[in-house]
């Protein structure tokens, strides 16, 4: 069995923090999260990291591995260069709590501010609805989201420009898009997207799409169609003209 070095961010609340190197044994099939757990069990019992399912389904173990936002549980060691130390850092867009754990509570607050699902009246007398599979498929692409917040982490509007108060980020554009194209939904969200949720700030660099572990086409299928809807509603000259005479 061979060994590899993991350069892991260590910090305590209120302190600056820095990298510490840990050497640990690596074996076939291991992922970064396995290495972190091994280090936790043998060398650093107080090392803080979030994780739950270890199968890419819960979105808890988000981190920056060799500088790239990824899930630790889905980052196989055989895809990394183990002759060099593997750096493991917390998501930098969110306030640090300790080691690899960040304060992601902003995301939960943002979601609460988005107009929730409101179903149209049921289609059938028994209170149920009818929906075509192809319409379900379109929504399900967005509903695959595991809320790992890697897209929020990589988005420069949040990361570099700190627009947390004016911009909800790719995760919540995806969430809004899922509600907007939900075949049963009847609520109105376009005004908020334009006025308070900052959809205009996104300049489609597609960084979010690149890091999405669920391979959701965030930019192409969620953000751009939302931008188009906002433009159609508020900026289209013909509709504006018509509206004046209404």
């Amino acid at each position, binding site marked *: 069995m061979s060994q590899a070095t993991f350069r892991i961010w260590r910090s*305590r*609340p209120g302190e600056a923090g820095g990298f510490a190197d840990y050497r640990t044994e690596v*074996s*076939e*099939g*291991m*992922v970064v999260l*396995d290495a972190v757990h091994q280090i*936790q*069990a043998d060398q650093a*019992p*107080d*090392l*803080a*990291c*979030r*994780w*739950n*399912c*270890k*199968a*890419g*389904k*819960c*979105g*808890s173990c988000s981190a920056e591995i060799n500088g790239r936002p990824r899930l630790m549980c*889905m980052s*196989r060691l055989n895809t990394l260069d183990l002759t060099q130390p593997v750096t493991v850092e917390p998501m930098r867009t969110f306030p640090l*709590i*300790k*080691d690899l*754990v960040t*304060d*992601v*509570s902003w995301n*939960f607050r943002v*979601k*609460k501010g988005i107009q*929730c*699902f409101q*179903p149209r009246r049921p289609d059938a007398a028994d*209170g*149920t*609805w*009818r*929906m*075509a*599979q192809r319409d*379900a498929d379109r*929504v*399900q692409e967005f*509903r*695959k989201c*595991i*809320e790992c917040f890697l897209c929020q982490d990589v988005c420069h509007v949040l990361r570099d420009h700190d627009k947390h108060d004016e911009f909800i980020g790719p995760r919540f554009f995806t969430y809004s898009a899922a*509600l907007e194209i*939900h075949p*049963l*939904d009847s609520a109105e969200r376009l005004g908020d997207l334009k006025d308070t949720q900052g959809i205009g700030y996104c300049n489609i660099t597609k960084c979010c799409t690149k890091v999405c572990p669920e391979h959701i086409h965030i930019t192409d299928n969620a953000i751009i169609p939302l931008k188009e809807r906002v433009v159609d509603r508020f900026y289209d000259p013909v509709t504006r003209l018509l509206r004046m005479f209404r």
Partner: protein
Amino acid sequence: MPAAHSYAYDVLIVGAGGAGLRAAIEAAQSGVTVGLICKSLLGKAHTVMAEGGMAAALANVDDRDNWKVHFADTMRGGQYVNNWRMAEIHAKEAPDRVRELEAYGAVFDRTADGRILQRNFGGHRYPRLAHVGDRTGLELIRTLQDHAIHLGITVHMEHTVIELLLDDGRAAGVLAYDRERGRFHTFAAKAVVLATGGIGRAYKITSNSWEGTGDGHALAYRAGAELIDMEFVQFHPTGMVWPPSVRGILVTEGVRGEGGVLRNSEGRRFMFDDIPDNYKPQTASDPEEGWRYTQGDKNARRPPELLTRDHVARCINREVKAGRGSPHGGVFLDIAWIKEKLPDAEAHIKRKLPSMYHQFKELADLDITKEPMEVGPTTHYIMGGIRVDGDSQESSIRGLFAAGECAAGINGANRLGGNSLSDLIVFGKRAGEYAAASARQRGPVRLDEGAIDRAMKASLEPFDRGGGGENPYKVQHDLQDTMQALVGIVRTEGEMQEALDRLAAFRERAARAGVEGHREYHAGWHTCLDLRNLLDVSEAITRSAIERKESRGGHFREDYPDKAAEFGTVNIATRRVADGTMQVTRVPIPEMPAELKQVIEAEKQ
């Protein structure tokens, strides 16, 4: 030493998986104040791992289905030691609970005429599982979460409950600590709902996340509540076996529901070799009939791969022990073979089983549309738990309710796949409803300051012992090895007695466990606190398993390989008695009403 914060709610819910969220929604909608404590972030609970679907007799795909068939299937699967009242309520109410999810925004896969699609699953007579590809659990938890956040529920994330507090013998709240700062908080509540999930972390090979440490089971037990059926642990037949780091991760039964077959190293479909008598009338007589069943032929019977989980797990275990296993100690699960039957098999598999495709591709470098998977049993679920009243979900402690995996009764000796997600929403709703009603009738509660102080002091002892104490991870690891080896799929009296001796030794080691550092987000300290719970549930599993001297459902005794009639009428109960030891008793199962007996007889054929 005062607690950092004190909170007070009418209803306090511990656990934010499917059952906890559904209970919170119901309680909040009835107008009481609701607090919700979760061990991780909201939306990360183990429910997200559920794949196949939720069972409800909607009869959208096969109109012969109804609550009676579902009830009879559940009782047959549970080998008739279920709480029949819960099985009845579950079968009757699951369809409404599933339809309600759609009103909350869930998007299920559809039938051709636009209704909720249902798929086949082990032990279910008709296609019954409402599903979303193979990520139904994520859909369930996200739907409930996104609905719940608009109802005024206060959510306390990353809090761990340390002690259940009683006032005059009634549940009155909890002591918890927050992971971020490591501070203690008291929660006073007029009713408490435990929805803490399972115990998988007591075993080495498990599909459960780190959270599955039997917290609710142990909190209720230490407070004096009765646990039942703890010997019934479900070993899911298909967990990943390779590479080692992913061993135990679930491979959905949906793979078999979509036509996947099990083969041994000789290429034989060994499940055809061992079909239990009570399932023979409903099982396919040849592979062709089995295939037709998976493709929706109503005249075909199901393939033996879709027999109940306990049976399939034992058959796989037998093949491996007989030397007919796969290279890494499992058997082969093949869905790629369906290309012989379907023209667009590759796309079909990716559409029906997207997360399985993804999981094997990314974690095992294996393309399931081209090659068979290697699978073997993994500790998945515990049928046993807190004994509750079938209607109200109230435990043997007044004001203490339980729902979901930590409650016992609906599943008897073995749970059918798909009955868990429906259990969460049916009994989560009921627990929330009855807890709110109970809270409304109750005056202010008083928390026992002495008990709080003692619990806080005890919780901090690992820091007093420091790094010189036992490594808590090592104790947990050894405990998992012991349960896996001695109280696993195949059990004997001698091995389980040895397990009890070892558990006693682990208790001593756990009492010496120590950690260094600060209280903030300290995983080692958390493990020290988990150990108590793991030890209590492991002891309850082992003692119950020793008491049940027969084989039934998830409980298989090599020294008593057959079912015994005398055990068919009792549940095994464990309870903490005054001197702190665990008392094991046999509790008679109440007589089933004649009309339910008739339902079972009529469905037997």
